């Protein structure tokens, strides 16, 4: 007898998390543009505050439109639940602030988005949380960097901007042997290209601003928990396993088991730090998620065409795309990313910084801006923009050279994109 089946990815992308509005029958997710919710009576109010009943109290903590987005992302990732945040950076901060106190330590991949590098390398350090950065390609460095106060291992599914492929099965094994969880930034892959929880990650987050939305109109993030990490067994997270005076003396793990992390992150993190998502943003991101399964194959298909073109162009010195056999993570990518390596990649132009500048300025279809994952194709020069605060040494560790250019391939006609690149490369070469 065939067993029961789960709904497929495409169906979840369109429906998960939404009960059709029982009053109006609205098919689209309604935008509950409200800060707060009328209590039925005083007893109901008290029950909501004391977590005896489910429901919404105040939109910084939860909101019906945002909850649809959260549940949909949890369903697509295969997690127990999710928390939407004001941005991807807010999601990373929420994860760290929920799990760590001053004196804690993170082991992170050196190949990170510049903002994440700043947060860990400088900002969190001010609050007593230190980070050791290691090469994502040498998983043994993760193991060696772990200290008694390490509370988290962290990396990007595809590193920014060199597309280092994080060996999640290996790194998660190292994390679990040390009794700590692995958090990954899955922004570049989306759940359509990779399911990090199936590979061993415990927590993940997205900058939903990128491929999830796809339209470049809304800033947002989302933090998803697999519910698989056993905080009690680890014994390293009193934040989740000991009574907390800041919230009814609650022992979050005892109270809710698999939901402990999200419970504290919502009830403390959103309450106190307040980096919540607006309902309009959730609605806008949901519009994007509904077509994620259609857009991602096209993003990947066009990227392959562009990479193939650049591979043959004499002005191009190096291409960092894991589907290319010369990429250091090619074999790992074939294993972990069978559907493709996404639509963001970097390449080096011969002629360094000046050639890179001229190239970017000559582009007509590509937009020069600080974003990726848009339906429109984008370009940026990391050394002077997204990663500009990093030292030369850190830039080198992250695989960024002075002439490195990052492209995000959109949904335009691929031939138009190639033509645009061909013309701009010719301009760059002429200058040289």
């Amino acid at each position, binding site marked *: *007898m065939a*067993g*029961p*089946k*789960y*709904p497929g990815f495409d*169906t*979840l992308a369109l*429906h*998960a*998390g*939404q*009960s059709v509005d029982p009053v109006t029958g609205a098919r689209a997710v309604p935008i509950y543009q409200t800060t707060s919710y009328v209590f039925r009576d005083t007893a109901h109010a008290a*029950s909501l505050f*004391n*977590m*005896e*009943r*489910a*429901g*919404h109290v105040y939109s910084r903590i*939860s*909101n*019906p439109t*945002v*909850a*649809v987005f*959260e*549940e949909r992302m*949890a*369903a697509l990732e*295969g*997690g*127990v*639940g*999710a*928390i*939407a945040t004001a941005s991807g950076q807010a999601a990373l901060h929420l994860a760290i602030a929920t799990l760590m106190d001053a004196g804690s330590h993170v082991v992170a991949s050196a190949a990170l988005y510049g903002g994440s590098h700043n947060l860990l390398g400088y900002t969190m350090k001010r609050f007593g949380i230190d980070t050791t950065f290691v090469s994502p390609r040498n998983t043994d460095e993760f193991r060696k960097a772990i200290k008694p106060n390490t509370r988290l291992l962290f990396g990007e599914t595809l590193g920014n901007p060199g597309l280092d492929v994080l060996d999640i099965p290996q790194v998660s094994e190292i994390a679990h042997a040390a009794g700590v969880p692995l958090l990954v930034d899955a922004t570049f892959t989306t759940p359509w290209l990779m399911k990090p929880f199936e590979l061993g990650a415990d927590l993940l987050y997205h900058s939903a601003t990128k491929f999830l939305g796809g339209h470049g109109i809304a800033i947002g993030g989302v933090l998803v928990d*697999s*519910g*698989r990490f*056993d905080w*009690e067994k680890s014994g390293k997270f009193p934040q989740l396993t000991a*009574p907390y005076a800041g919230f*009814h*003396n*609650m*022992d979050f793990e*005892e*109270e*809710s*088991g*698999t*939901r402990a992390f*999200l419970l504290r992150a*919502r009830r403390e993190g959103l309450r106190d730090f307040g980096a919540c998502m607006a309902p309009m943003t959730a609605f806008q991101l949901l519009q994007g998620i509904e077509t994620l399964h259609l857009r991602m194959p096209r993003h990947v298909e066009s990227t392959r065409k562009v990479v193939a073109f650049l591979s043959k162009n004499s002005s191009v010195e190096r291409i960092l795309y894991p589907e290319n056999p010369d990429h250091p993570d090619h074999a790992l990518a074939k294993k972990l990313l069978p559907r493709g390596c996404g639509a963001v990649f970097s390449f080096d132009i011969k002629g360094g910084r000046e050639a890179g500048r001229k190239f970017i300025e000559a582009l007509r279809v590509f937009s020069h801006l600080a974003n990726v994952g848009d339906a429109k194709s984008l370009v940026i020069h990391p050394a002077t923009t997204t990663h500009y605060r990093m030292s030369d040494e850190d830039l080198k560790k992250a695989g960024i050279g002075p002439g490195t250019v990052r492209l995000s391939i959109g949904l335009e006609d691929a031939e138009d994109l190639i033509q645009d690149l061909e013309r701009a490369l010719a301009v760059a070469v002429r200058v040289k």
Partner: protein
Amino acid sequence: MQLQINGKAAFAYTAAHDIDPAKRTVAFVHGAGLDHSWWGLQSRYFGYHGFNVLAVDLPGHGRSAGPALATIGEMADWVKKFLDEKKIKSASVVGHSMGSLVALEFAARYPAIAERIALIGTAYPMKVGDAFLDAAQRNDQSAFDMETIWGHAPQVPLAGNPNPGMWMYGDTLARLARLAPGVLHTDLVACNGYGGGMEAAAKLKCPAQFILGARDMMTPPRGAEELMKAIGHSKAARVAISGHSLMAEAPDATLDALIAFLA
């Protein structure tokens, strides 16, 4: 609350309250493969509204040491021992699915202690299909899939969760993933093999409340009809929108039914 029963660690959630002999007691007993936290909202409510709460982890589940108990009768006796350890002379027992059979058997074995029983998502006999049993015996993922999919109403994977931001399927799967090998199979065999339901129903003296999900695929409401007839004096509440996981799918309706019955 952690204590020792038969020399093994035994746990019950008490909603952060000590046991007060002056208060009435409600014991919550979870279903197959689950644990005390399945009762989160409901147990918390009673703990903060004048009751002693003991939401137990049966042996081999949650924070209670294994092995899992093989029969419903052994589970009922284990609940009795837990109450004895805390010197509780009278308690209502609320059980879900497998736990509902434990509540029924407990009330039949210990009529002087059972104050009231609530049977949620129940059926008698509680037969388990061969495919489910076989998969559970092999500790195959498909057993967890069956428990997850049949354990919720058909609309659940696509519909909104009353608990904001949570995905019920993911939560159930994560709980099952934490189980020691063989525990789910032991539970399912216990449900499948329980044959004392009618005898227990005939002995039952205390008030009994059924709370049933109209969309329950695992224990459809018709599966409880014979038991209801046999008990005679029981009452039933049907929750239109819910499947088998009533505490998660319809937490308010389930809580309201419990308040009406127990408070």
